[in-house]
């Protein structure tokens, strides 16, 4: 609680302090106390200048969809144009902006990973500002997501455990080799290859876009770290059997069987049955 009161005192000086206090109070009394637990992990209380910097960045880059105060915009048809951001937490901002998903180039069913627009400092400022709108999961500590913090002798056990959690909770959407899969209506679960450990952790924590939330209450922080350890281990593992053909399962394998296998064999058959060069010299006497 010490950290929270520190944050509150910091925010009280901001122009939005009143609103924030009100929101926070409502949410606290609303029984959302448990959700606050990850917020405790937030180390440095965002100071006013960072939040102010974040707010100015927000007004330029985000407000057109999420509203000037992050309250969200509802279209005439009643659908969400940009969702409200109070309570999504710094972790959500760090994930969405840090993987380039936000700001979106144009509204669509799904924001895809792309080139990151903001610098790490700017992302931090944005995160601080959005965090100031309402309590939500904070950016996790390195200890929480970095598998290298697992002691050497326990690491393999952690990887195996992570594999079990991965198979149960993740493969249905992200595929057995974490290469992604399709969702209804043009949406998709992205590939997890090349995604930083922190972002994977934040995704599980915050449930970005259509992805469900895997809160710390149910999928423990250490269990998330085990999943990340597993993902790292399969990314590091050699391709034992040769080229992976996209790791998409039997569809791409079938395609290669036809193109490479049947293709090569038929090519050889054509060569075998082709007539060879004829001599114009005539048969020797």
């Amino acid at each position: 609680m010490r950290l929270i009161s520190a944050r509150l005192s910091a925010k009280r000086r901001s122009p939005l302090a009143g609103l924030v206090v009100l929101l926070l109070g409502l949410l606290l009394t609303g029984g959302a106390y448990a959700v606050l637990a990850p917020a405790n992990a937030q180390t440095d209380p965002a100071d006013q200048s960072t939040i102010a910097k974040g707010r100015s960045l927000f007004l330029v880059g985000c407000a057109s969809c999420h509203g000037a105060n992050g309250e969200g915009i509802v279209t005439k048809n009643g659908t969400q144009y940009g969702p409200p951001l109070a309570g999504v937490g710094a972790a959500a901002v760090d994930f969405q902006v840090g993987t380039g998903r936000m700001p979106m180039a144009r509204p669509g069913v799904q924001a895809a990973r792309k080139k990151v627009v903001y610098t790490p400092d700017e992302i931090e400022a944005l995160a601080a500002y959005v965090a100031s709108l309402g309590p939500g999961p904070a950016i996790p500590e390195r200890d929480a997501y970095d598998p290298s913090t697992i002691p050497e002798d326990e690491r393999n056990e952690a990887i195996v455990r992570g594999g079990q959690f991965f198979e149960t909770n993740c493969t249905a959407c992200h595929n057995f080799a974490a290469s992604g899969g399709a969702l209804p209506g043009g949406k998709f679960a992205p590939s997890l290859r090349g995604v930083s450990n922190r972002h994977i952790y934040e995704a599980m924590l915050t449930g970005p876009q259509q992805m469900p939330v895997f809160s710390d209450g149910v999928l423990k922080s250490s269990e998330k770290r085990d999943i990340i350890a597993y993902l790292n281990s399969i990314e590091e593992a050699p391709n034992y059997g040769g080229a992976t053909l996209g790791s998409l399962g039997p569809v791409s394998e079938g395609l290669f069987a036809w193109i490479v296998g049947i293709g090569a064999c038929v090519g050889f058959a054509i060569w075998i049955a082709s007539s060879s060069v004829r001599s114009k010299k005539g048969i020797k006497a």
Partner: protein
Amino acid sequence: MSTATTNGKTAARTARRNPIAGILTWADDRTGLATASKKQIRKVFPDHWSFMLGEIALWSFVVLLLTGTFLTLWFKPSMGEVVYNGSYDQLRGVSMSEAYASTLHISFDVRGGLLMRQMHHWAAMLFVGAMFVHMMRVFMTGAFRKPRELNWIIGGLLLQLGILEGFAGYSLPDDLLSGTGLRIAQGLMQAVPVVGTYVSFFVFDGEFPGDAIIPRLYTVHVLLIPGILLALIGAHMLLLVYQKHTQWPGPGRTNENVVGYPMLPVYAAKAGGFFFIVFGVTALMGGLMSLNPVWRFGPYNPSQVTAGSQPDWYMGVAEGLLRIFPGWETHIFGFTISWNILIPGVVLPGVIFTVFFAYPFLEAWITGDKREHHLLQRPRNAPTRTAFLVGMMTLYGLLWAAGGNDILAVTFHLNLNYITYFMRVAVFVGPVIAFLITRRWCISLQRADRDRLLHGFESGIIMRSPEGAYAEKHLPISVDEAYTLTARDRDELVQAPTPADENGVANRKVRMMRLRARLSQYWYGTAIQKPTAQELEEAQHHAEHELEVHEDGHQHLESGDYSGEYEFDGHAADGHQFDGRHAIEGEELRKH
């Protein structure tokens, strides 16, 4: 060997000089094989690349037997639970079935084991793929016609069994993917009306997954189906040898003979060499291209699933049917009929295979053709049949794509639902469009052949008449080509019965005869026939007429006639003497 009639000394010397002859004599004394094999040793096989497609299937089957035997040395077909303690770190300590653990053992702790596993799997995909390609070749060229209908049926059985065998093999490792496949198969069984649950409980020895399915499938996979496959392959080959291979028409190649290379040595070398090539291609694929990485899927667990859960490609059609079928279910008198599973999973495959097996007889009935055929048809010369095949291929391709709709969606950023909606319509419309286009296309090609016969080929030589008109000179095609183009049967329509014939014939029979005449009409309707001798002659006269040299020593273009048949007149431009069409001895560039 003539050892019996010579004195002992000579015989001994002969035997010493030629030990093979000695062995052959020994064998023939006991089996009498010489009589049977004297003709077979130099048996003639025609040479064409498309005749080797079946061989790909045959040789991949041999590769399957070899690699499969290797795998049985370590594979344990048991669903007993063990804790994995092998070399693959990510699964160490996990409970799994012995089948899955031994698959991991083969992959990670047996040198060459992973290679053999992958070769076995690639060869299986090639086996079924090659059977498909071979079947399409046989279909498209009319090689299934009398007297080869039986071999068509045996081939169809081989294809069906090959697919079943593949599915059994796919299910054996007991990884997440194979278990998901079995789960779907169990769902299909369970949906069968009345007996569904009983069938499922008998097959799985109780509730899914049970502990019996893998040992049972193993017996099916390594003993039952391979045994039947071997027997059927034997019958397929024996019939082939007895009936002799079909051949393409050509100079000297008729319905009464077979022209090609002898079994020994040429065909033996080519076929034997091709075995090594297929084996080699499989080995390269197994070494360089990973497939079915079972360690990534993890052991089967009925509460887990992975995105991209698909069967191997040859089951893709069934998968596509299941995916695009609407969710229809009927409840009647307290019973449930699952049309959404029954129709795509049981009824439609049954219909497809029935049409498949009945096809040679259907076509023979429609065309009324009861003759023996040993000469192949070019696909264009059977436009309706070729179009039917292309329609079926289109259907197959669409359903196959529908079976991978999630992969298509994620790879090409498409909307999964739209793909399904599209396919629901396309499977009806696509084959019809493909059929119509192919039929027209074939007929156009036939027309081009006819033009070539009647008017010759475009020589590329542009002639200019004194009036200044340009026309391209057509030259006659070679007699070989002309013979090859005309070496086909004239299509004969089945006549509808006349009222006189109908007297005294049952009504039903008359209706069938009429239907048959109408089908025959549609079948051959617009196909182009080869020209008759008379037509050829007329075309030639026409050409002669046009080529008449006028009194002034030049040809004149008849007004409005640009048909382009002109006598070569004057000189070609310098350099054309080296156009590759003539002997160049004595030719040189003109001196200027």
